[in-house]
């Protein structure tokens, strides 16, 4: 919303104060002011009233005229002018030689062979409207040579407040409410609004009006006729223009002016069309043409202003085309009302049509304002058009009254909430400047919230703190730390496990952490031939690519791998993120946090890469839980899983995830030749696994003894099991030292380390164990390689 400092100064005398500094204070105390502040008129000087004394046709140009103008100096000035509305006797604004208009300094200038010693100006050239149709015509009563700035309020400071920072302050949607803030900030007094006394019309007939629906809180109306004035006074038009509104005609301008001044929207009907004003909802849907010519669909929830049974206006949003003021309108009915804010908001949302009026109604306007606004309207109307007549009494019905809010608070409450000492005097003056009723007895303050703040904004003690402190100034606060007993802070186990996983994967295994979205990437999945599995969806999603929530991170991660195949011949990526595994029994999402890892390699075999990933998981489990890893074959259930080498992963005895190879067609679409292996682990399940305590094993003082055995097999498990079964306490370590294949087939070499804490082992007793293992394995068809 654009705000005019001149307008504010109508209601609070800020003379002698630094206005820009006050605007800064306003930004810190009330609502954020945009950085750009417009110093209107600062680039305009040397413009005076001139009278056109003679007009001659230009000999060669049809458009140009040669004028002599009187600017109150000894000699007439020769001017070449291109405006269409030049005429002898007119008074117009004139930029003298040396005058400043924007970046231009007026100097003598040759125009089609004649010298022009200045320029007659349009309103647009003066920057006071966008009217460039012709010269601005001035009041004939103005004396020639008078500086235009002494006649009109061209100099002004215009600043903008973001509407978003006013959502909770219905009172700040007009200049008067803003002026109240400036009064409180500056310590100056707020002047009352200049209104007509409407009691003098009490004897006139009332308007036939009735509120038939409680969504209308208050409806005030008045009929006027004989408004003859078409164009609004210049200063009024300048203010509207500076505040971002175009001047339409006098009548419309006053309603807009009052909206910008008081925040109260008004509407004018042709009285012939609203003989029987009724405010109600309909029990059916219908189409209604608003004054912008658009047909709109009205439904049963939308409040309408009606003439009897004929709808004439969407309450709080926009009037109808049929009841609009037209050329032959003589009598107008003014509407000044308040409606239920939620209802107006819902209506604008359903119509997808927000207006200056509706955005104010949505904020819960003060119903007490309507009659004042009518009185203000009459005052402005009569001042500018003395012949205009009020022809009805003020007709006013109030269907809803907000309760008066009064409460007390103790000064200790202020101290406690602010943490500083704010004087009683500051509290009293601030609240009273803001319009609150306030009194102090002992240490107890009693406040009454003014009507314009109690529609939703200020309802309780904590709200009062804001009023006191924002005017006090947060920059003036002493800041302090807190004193409290201290207790140990225990880290959330899942959170710390997550951090450990990240550290290991990044620092030890050089993996890269990625983020992705919580929904499936339908298009990208399709490209890879991965099915989008049915799951919880986003309701009413406009974009099918942002619709279905993911059950697993892996497909998305594979899309990311594909995106990065040119990055390096081999890399590992991981993500810790949420997935939704359908709904739980109670209907809520089964949200889970997963760790997904994918390894990609163009240079190594899929078996090698798979082994690497197994080993990475083993390191994670060992490092974080001191727990061994175990793999158990499982069946494929997703389209990206290769049915071979798909294993459930166990941390100790708990199944916490899976490791697998990517299905061949998917894998080839990512990269024809690369090996791609993935794992997905449930982070919470992993975090909840028992951590196996570290047990110190004192090294034996006696030498260890190693024995190497090579077996003809390609599976290690039976060897390990056999050694453990037969070696007992003597076996200290088993290590696979070699795996190879030759013409005789695959074989595995293990080195068994034997040790005893109490003595040196003899070769014979070690060989007893070795022979048992050999015999055992031979029995199982696994021969010792000679």
């Amino acid at each position, binding site marked *: 919303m654009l705000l005019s400092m001149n307008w504010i100064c109508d209601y609070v005398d800020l003379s002698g104060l630094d206005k820009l500094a006050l605007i800064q204070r306003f930004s*810190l105390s009330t609502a954020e002011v945009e950085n750009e502040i417009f110093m209107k008129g600062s680039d305009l000087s040397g413009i005076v009233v001139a009278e056109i004394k003679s007009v001659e046709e230009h000999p060669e140009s049809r458009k140009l005229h040669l004028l002599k103008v009187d600017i109150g100096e000894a000699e007439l000035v020769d001017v070449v002018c291109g405006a269409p509305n030049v005429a002898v006797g007119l008074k117009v604004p004139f930029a003298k030689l040396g005058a400043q208009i924007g970046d231009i300094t007026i100097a003598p200038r040759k125009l089609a062979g004649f010298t022009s010693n200045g320029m007659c100006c349009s309103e647009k050239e003066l920057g006071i409207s966008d009217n460039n149709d012709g010269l601005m015509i001035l009041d004939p009563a103005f004396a020639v040579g008078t500086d235009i700035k002494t006649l009109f309020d061209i100099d002004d400071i215009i600043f903008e407040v973001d509407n978003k920072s006013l959502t909770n302050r219905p009172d700040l949607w007009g200049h008067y409410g803003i002026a109240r803030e400036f009064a409180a900030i500056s310590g100056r007094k707020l002047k009352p609004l200049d209104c007509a006394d409407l009691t003098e019309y009490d004897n006139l007939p009332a308007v036939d009006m009735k509120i038939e629906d409680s969504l209308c809180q208050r409806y005030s109306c008045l009929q006027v006729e004989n408004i003859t004035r078409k164009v609004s006074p210049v200063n009024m038009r300048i203010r509207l223009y500076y505040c971002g509104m175009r001047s339409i005609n006098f009548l419309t301008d006053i309603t807009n002016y009052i909206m910008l001044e008081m925040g109260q929207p008004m509407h004018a009907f042709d009285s012939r069309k609203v003989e029987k004003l009724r405010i109600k909802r309909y029990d059916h849907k219908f189409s209604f043409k608003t004054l912008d010519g658009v047909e709109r669909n009205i439904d049963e929830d939308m409040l309408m202003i009606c003439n009897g049974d004929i709808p004439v206006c969407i309450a709080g949003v926009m009037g109808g085309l049929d009841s609009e003021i037209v050329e032959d309108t003589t009598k107008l009915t003014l509407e000044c009302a308040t409606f239920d804010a939620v209802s107006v908001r819902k209506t604008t949302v359903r119509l997808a049509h927000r207006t200056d009026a509706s955005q104010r109604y949505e904020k819960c306007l003060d119903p007490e304002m309507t009659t004042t606004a009518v009185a203000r309207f009459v005052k402005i109307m009569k001042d500018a058009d003395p012949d205009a007549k009020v022809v009805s009494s003020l007709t006013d019905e109030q269907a809803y009254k907000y309760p008066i809010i009064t409460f007390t608070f103790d000064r200790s409450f202020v101290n406690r909430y602010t943490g500083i000492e704010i004087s009683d005097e500051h509290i009293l003056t601030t609240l009273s400047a803001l319009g609150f009723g306030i009194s102090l007895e002992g240490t107890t303050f009693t406040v009454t919230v003014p009507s314009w703040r109690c529609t939703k904004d200020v309802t309780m003690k*904590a709200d009062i703190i804001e009023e006191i402190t924002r005017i006090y100034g947060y920059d003036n606060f002493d800041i302090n730390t*807190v004193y409290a007993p201290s207790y140990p802070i225990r880290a*959330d186990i899942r959170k710390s496990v997550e951090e450990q996983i990240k550290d290991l994967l990044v620092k030890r295994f050089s993996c890269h952490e990625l983020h992705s979205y919580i929904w499936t990437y339908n298009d990208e999945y399709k490209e890879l031939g991965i099915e989008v599995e049915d799951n919880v969806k986003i309701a009413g999603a406009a974009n099918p690519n942002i619709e279905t929530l993911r059950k697993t991170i892996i497909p998305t991660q594979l899309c990311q791998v594909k995106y990065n195949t040119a990055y390096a011949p081999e890399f590992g990526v991981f993500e810790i993120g949420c997935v939704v595994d359908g709904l739980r029994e109670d209907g809520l999402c089964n949200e889970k946090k997963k760790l997904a890892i994918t390894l990609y390699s163009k240079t190594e075999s899929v078996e090698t890469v798979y082994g690497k990933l197994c080993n990475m998981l083993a390191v994670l489990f060992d490092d974080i839980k001191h727990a061994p890893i175990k793999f158990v074959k499982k069946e494929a259930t997703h389209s990206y899983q290769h049915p071979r080498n798909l294993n459930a992963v166990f941390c100790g005895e708990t199944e916490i995830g899976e490791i697998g190879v990517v299905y061949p067609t998917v894998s080839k679409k990512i990269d024809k030749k690369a090996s791609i292996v993935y794992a997905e682990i449930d982070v919470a399940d992993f975090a909840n696994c028992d951590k196996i305590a570290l047990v110190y094993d004192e090294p034996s003082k006696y030498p260890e003894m190693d024995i190497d055995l090579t077996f003809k097999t390609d599976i290690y498990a039976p060897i390990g099991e056999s050694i453990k079964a037969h070696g007992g306490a003597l076996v200290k370590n088993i290590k696979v030292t070699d795996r190879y294949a030759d013409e005789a087939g695959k074989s595995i070499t293990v080195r068994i380390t034997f040790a005893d804490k109490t003595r040196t082992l003899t070769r014979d007793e070690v060989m007893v164990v070795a022979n048992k293992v050999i015999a055992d394995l031979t029995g199982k068809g696994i021969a010792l390689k000679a």
Partner: protein
Amino acid sequence: MSQNIAELKQEFAAKLAAAESMQTLEEIRVDFLGKKGSVTELLKSMKDMSPEEKKAFGQEVNVLKNELAQAITEKGEELRRAELEREVASMPEFDVSMPSVLDRGSFHPITLVQRECETIFKSMGFHVEDYAEIVSDYECFEALNIPKHHPARDMQDTYYLTNGQLLKTHTSAAQNAIYKKYRDDLVNNGVPIKAIFPGRCFRNEATDACHENTFFQMEGVMVDKDISISNLIFFMKTMLSEVFKRDVKVRLRPGFFPFVEPGFELDISCAICGGEGCPSCKHSGWLELCPCGMIHPEVLKAGGIDPEEYTGFAFGLGLTRLAMMRYGVKDIRDLNSGSLKVLSQFTEDK
């Protein structure tokens, strides 16, 4: 015989001087002092001598023997020194200008700034909480004093799910659960509630270089008997000074959020221009950084805490925004792009 000794000495000296390797030296030793060496031969010639002569000659030969042995040892040391010097000198200078191969992994930039913030708050005694991404309408709105049809719901275009839940629009959605979790400790044992909860949030809006539908925030709350606005400003200033590693100036402006009263927008002095005004801060000298405020009494009540007895503050920090500021990331979409060209650059940042 002394004649022979003199000759032998001369011969030895000449050979020793000529020796250039340990091997030659060993040959010299064998030639002179070995079992069949010249000196041994000299001793053999004693057998025909009288005892007096033997004694005298024996002593003379022993002296000789010791002299030679001594000379050989010294020569040996000299040769070893020379050899070591040659070995040292023979070591080539390596090419340290070769580029290093770091083969390092990377953290997501959000992880880096999140960890940093967590460390700061942990050091001030705050719990770090993890919370769900999918929450109820109650958690996200109702419990935060945002009833249905409240204009604040306009500000947040929400992803509602087909089961009636929603993707949380702000980390504040965790507030209610956190109050309930720590309420008993507060009320029964006087333990202040001090917690931060970083998390991923979602808003249904069109994405461009500055807007994302998926982003990270970090919320913080502190509740105790006498928490004040003065405390709030202190913690904000301290926390942000730690984050930005300089003494930041902060300023508060009124801001409207239904779950705080009073609510503030907190600005910090622009790091780029130091408050003078520059394009980064739109020439204001200030950057709007984090919304905060005193927790609304209704919000405390919903968490089971009596607002007459307890007060508290809450704040929100945009982790995504912070990461972008910290690393100069210009396009927010890069963060979720999965592009290793972008993301592999974020190694540990201590």
